[in-house]
C-alpha cells in the first residue's frame, strides 16, 4: 500500500536520505529505528510532504504523492502525523483542535465534525476532556489529543515521529497503549521510536536506518535477535 522508492533528500549540500526503499502493507505497522541524525524523522516528514524530496517516489494507495500533479493538501489530509512536541493549537480547546481539520479540509459540518471528534477523543480515552485547553492537560493527554486530531482526518496512514520522546517516563505508557490499540484496529502506521518494547510487541516490520539508507529490515524478532549487519548489531547492543 505504501511504497517508498529510491528516495533522496538533502538540506543544502548535506545529504540526509540517500536512496531509501521501503514497503508497508495495508494494516501493518512499520517501526523505523536508527541513531540520531540517521534521517528517520526526515523520511517520515517526506511522507506527508512537510519536506519535499529531490529524487525518488512515494506511492500511497497507487498514487505517487511526490508527483507534481499530486495535490499536497489532499496528501496531507490522508496522512496523519503525530509530532514529538505534540504541536497542539494552544488557543483552542481539545474539541476545537480536533474539529479544525475536518471542518476546514474535509468540509464537514460543525455538528458532524464534533460528533466525529467526540468519537476519536473517546478512542484515545479523553472523552471527558473535550473542553480542556492544552495547558490544562498533562503531556500524555496532550499527545493523545494530538493523535485524536490526526485520527479525525480519517487518514489512510498514521505517522508517529518520536511521539513519546518528550514525555515524562510515567506518561509514556498511556500514549503507547493508544498506539497499540490503533494498530490492533488495523491502522496502517509508520512509527519512529526508541521504544523497542513497542516495536517488539506491535511492529510487523522493523527497518534500521543509518546514514540515510535502510541498512536492514525484517520482523522484530529477526532484526533484534539476529541482526545480519554489524552496524545494526552494534546499535541494538547499545540500546536493548
Amino acid at each position: 500500500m505504501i511504497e517508498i522508492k529510491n528516495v533522496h533528500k538533502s538540506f543544502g549540500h548535506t545529504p540526509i536520505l540517500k536512496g531509501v526503499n521501503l514497503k508497508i502493507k495495508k494494516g501493518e505497522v512499520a517501526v523505523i529505528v536508527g541513531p540520531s541524525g540517521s534521517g528517520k524523522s526526515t523520511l517520515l516528514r517526506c511522507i506527508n510532504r512537510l519536506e519535499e524530496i529531490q529524487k525518488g517516489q512515494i506511492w500511497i494507495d497507487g498514487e505517487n504523492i511526490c508527483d507534481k500533479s499530486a495535490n499536497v493538501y489532499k496528501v496531507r489530509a490522508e496522512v496523519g502525523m503525530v509530532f514529538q512536541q505534540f504541536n497542539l493549537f494552544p488557543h483552542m480547546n481539545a474539541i476545537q483542535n480536533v474539529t479544525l481539520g475536518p471542518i476546514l479540509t474535509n468540509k464537514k459540518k460543525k455538528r458532524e465534525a464534533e460528533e466525529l471528534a467526540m468519537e476519536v477523543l473517546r478512542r484515545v480515552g479523553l472523552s471527558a476532556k473535550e473542553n480542556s485547553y492544552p495547558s490544562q492537560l498533562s503531556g500524555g493527554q496532550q499527545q493523545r489529543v494530538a493523535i485524536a486530531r490526526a485520527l479525525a482526518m480519517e487518514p489512510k496512514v498514521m505517522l508517529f515521529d518520536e511521539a513519546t520522546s518528550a514525555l515524562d517516563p510515567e506518561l509514556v505508557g498511556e500514549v503507547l497503549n493508544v498506539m497499540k490499540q490503533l494498530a490492533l484496529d488495523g491502522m496502517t502506521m509508520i512509527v519512529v521510536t526508541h521504544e523497542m518494547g513497542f516495536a517488539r510487541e506491535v511492529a510487523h516490520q522493523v527497518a534500521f536506518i543509518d546514514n540515510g539508507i535502510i541498512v536492514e529490515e525484517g520482523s522484530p524478532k529477526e532484526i533484534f535477535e539476529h541482526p545480519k549487519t554489524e552496524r545494526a548489531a552494534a546499535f541494538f547492543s547499545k540500546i536493548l
Partner: protein
Amino acid sequence: MFFLEKTMEKLINNFIMFLPSLLKGTRFTIEITFFAIIISTLFGFFFSLCLISKKRYLNKPVRIFINIIRGTPLLVQMFYIYFVLPDLGIKLGALESGILALSICYGAYHAEIFRSGIIAISIGQWEAANSIGLKYYQTMSRVILPQAARIILPPMGTSFIILLKDSSLASVITVRELTRSGQLIASTTFENLTVFSMVALIYIILTQLLALFIHYMEKRYRVK
C-alpha cells in the same frame, strides 16, 4: 481676590469661545487617525507577509521600501506626497495626503511588529496545521494570527498612540486638525497658555481612549 475672579472668568470665557473650533479640529484628528490606523495595519500585515516569504521577489523589494520609509522623517514624507506627487500627475487633497503619509510610514513600522509576532510562533504550529491539510490563509487566520495577536498587540498599541500624536504633523500641509486649529486661534488671540493647554488636554483624552480600546483587545487575546 477680585483679580483671581477676573482671571477665572476670562479663562472660562476663553475656554467656551475656543472649544468649538478646537473640537472641529479634533474631528479631523480623529478622522486622520482612524483611517491611518486601519490602512497602516493593512499595509503592515501585507508587508509582513512579503517579509517572511521565502520568495526573493517578494521580500527584497519590500525590505528596501521599508528601509527607505524608516530612514526618512514622516514630515518629509508628508511634503513629498503633498508637494512632489502632483508634479508626477498624482494630485491628492491635504487630508488624503496626510492619511496616506501616516499609513505608509506606520505601515512600515507595523510590518516589523507583525513580522516579529508571526515569527515568534513555533514552526511546529505551521507543521501541525499543514499536517491536517490547512492552506496558507487558513493556517494564518486560524492558527498563527490568533496566537501572534498576543505578542503583536502591546507594541501595536504604542504605535497607534504615536500615530495619533503624529497626525499633528498634517498641520504643516494645511490640514486643519487639532494642532493647526490651536495654532490659528493662538496666533490671533495670543492666548497661548489657554489654547495649547486645551490642545494638550484633548490629545490626552484621545490617547487615553485609544489606550482603553487596546487594553480591551489585549484582554480578548490573553492566553487561557
